[in-house]
């Protein structure tokens, strides 16, 4: 199949179907409601399950129930909705069930706005819900990349028995770009009989399965959390992804940026190159696990004097950038947090100011 022109939200819905996930529960919220609208028509064609829940809280538990009986399942929402789902997400990570959550971010806090934002970095990467847990967080910078990450997310969720989050800003959901759905990314069914509550007859088992999150014995809870920690450490070894831009030669300043914002930075870097100023960029594609080593190595280049973290929020990823740079270079923040995407000219001006 060739390329088709699709809106990001619809492409995300189609990508899930192409990956082999036919179960979707959701609650409408701008700017991602087109996913539900698309799937309300599309899933019945495939014999799949579409249900609009009564709230994001309920949806997160519909996801939990379905995932816990071993079925592939996903939902999509936007920032305030993800806040409500965060309770369920905490339980799903604790119960070690695979599921995919898509957050098409809008501005906050509170109702904030409906324009693109990256203000849920901390919520996605550092927790959001209660307890010690991590999500594997993938951050697409184009509609095509959103499709690929969506298709890969199910395999990753099942590999780790942990929810995966696709974190896109509102532009990723709203813009139209040509996309294709690689057949190779179709996810094969995996056997979940070891743990799923799919009915004893289904798995011809003498043992019942139990999906729970309560561990009243402190030693048992401690070892349960250590087991989860080991999975997050494995993600840090095996799943880190980033893209490097203009870092092969010498550069004076290193930008760290992700999602739509990183595409604006690419244009700024090209324009600055034409003016004779070399700027490199590391674009995290996974926000957890974070590409610490790539950022450390790029910042450590003798030519690099300063690091600039560009994000569409008040500066959340900058803490992880600072940790990665480990004090070798000064780290500055630039961004906007009202829903506007900074222009290439604005990024260029900031770069010139920061290079000193």
């Amino acid at each position, binding site marked *: 199949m060739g390329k088709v022109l699709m809106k990001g939200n619809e492409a995300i819905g189609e990508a899930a179907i192409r990956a082999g996930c036919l*179960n979707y*529960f959701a609650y409408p919220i701008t700017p991602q409601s087109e996913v539900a609208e698309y799937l309300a028509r599309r899933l019945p064609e495939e014999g799949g*399950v579409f*249900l609009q*829940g*009564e*709230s994001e*809280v*309920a*949806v*997160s*538990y*519909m*996801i*939990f*129930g*379905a*995932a*816990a*009986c071993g*079925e592939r*399942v996903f939902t999509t929402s936007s920032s305030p909705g993800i806040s409500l789902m965060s*309770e*369920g997400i905490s*339980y799903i990570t604790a*119960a070690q069930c695979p599921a995919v959550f898509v957050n098409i971010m809008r501005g906050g806090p509170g109702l904030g706005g409906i324009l693109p934002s990256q203000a849920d970095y901390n919520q996605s990467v550092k927790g959001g819900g209660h307890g010690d847990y991590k999500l594997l967080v993938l951050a697409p910078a184009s509609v095509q990349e959103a499709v690929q990450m969506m298709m890969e997310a199910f395999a990753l969720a099942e590999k780790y028995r942990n929810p995966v989050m696709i974190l896109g800003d509102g532009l990723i959901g709203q813009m139209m770009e040509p996309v294709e759905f690689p057949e190779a990314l179709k996810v094969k069914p995996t056997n979940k009989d070891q743990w799923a*509550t*799919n*009915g*004893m*007859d*289904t798995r011809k088992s003498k043992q*019942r*399965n*139990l*999906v*729970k*999150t*309560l561990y009243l014995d402190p030693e048992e809870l401690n070892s349960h959390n250590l087991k989860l920690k080991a999975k997050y450490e494995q993600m840090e070894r095996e799943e880190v992804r980033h893209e490097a831009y203009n870092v092969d030669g010498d550069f004076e300043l290193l930008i760290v940026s992700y999602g739509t914002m990183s595409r604006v930075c690419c244009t700024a870097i090209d324009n600055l190159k034409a003016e004779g100023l070399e700027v490199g960029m590391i674009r995290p594609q996974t926000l957890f696990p974070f590409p610490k080593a790539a950022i450390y190595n790029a910042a450590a280049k003798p030519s690099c004097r300063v690091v600039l973290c560009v994000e569409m929020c008040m500066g959340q990823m900058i803490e992880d950038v600072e940790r990665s740079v480990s004090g070798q270079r000064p780290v500055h923040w630039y961004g906007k947090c009202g829903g506007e995407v900074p222009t290439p000219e604005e990024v260029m001006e900031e770069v010139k100011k920061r290079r000193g």
Partner: protein
Amino acid sequence: MGKTFQKPEALSDTITHYCPGCTHGVAHRLVAEVIDELGIRRRTVGIAPVGCAVLMYNYFTFDFQEAAHGRAPAMATGIKRVRPDLVVFTYQGDGDLASIGMSEIVHAANRGEKFTVIFINNAVYGMTGGQMAPTTLPDQRTTTSPFGRKISDTGMPVKMSELLAALQTPAYITRQTLLSPKYINRAKKAIKQAFSYQIENKCFSFVELVSTCPTNWGMTPLNAIKWAEEKMLSYFPLGVFKTPEEKERSTNL
């Protein structure tokens, strides 16, 4: 001579953690007997609530999920939608179902989700230590209504069966109790009817069981039964509030 009485296969050999005089044990046994009689144990998934019954999966021998507080009906929805061949039930107390989980239960009932709810109404939060519930009776003392529940402050107790029966979607809604053998026999019939409707893919089914909590009521088990019969059954009348057949008749009018 063969055995005339034995433990249901659906029940395990675990020693109870429930207090003396608590009716959870009776309710558990009735559910287990019905599951045995219907031959559905190997395709049943139970959903445990938050409350005294959070560990109820220890007493059963089939698949179980453990919910967050109030969310069991949403989890049951998730399971039934993706695996309609499984038999699913939630087991929830009054704090779980009528307070924090009010939204989930009402919407699951209104969608006509094909699972069964066992609702234990003992007019108090048990596990957290006897706080006021939405079903706590007027003037009833609890740890958070130490001078008795004041209606002017907190409204009247919620009648869940009547509330759910008011929805227009066909359903089986009944209130029973576990206070004596004659009631227990009727409760078992209701539970069996509820599971049967589910198996026939007919409707949402809901069995409220008026129960006792001697520990948090501060009564002996016998006095608790007496108090429940006098005070609770007059406010929470027993009966069948709705059947799918009745609904069919009324919509045909």
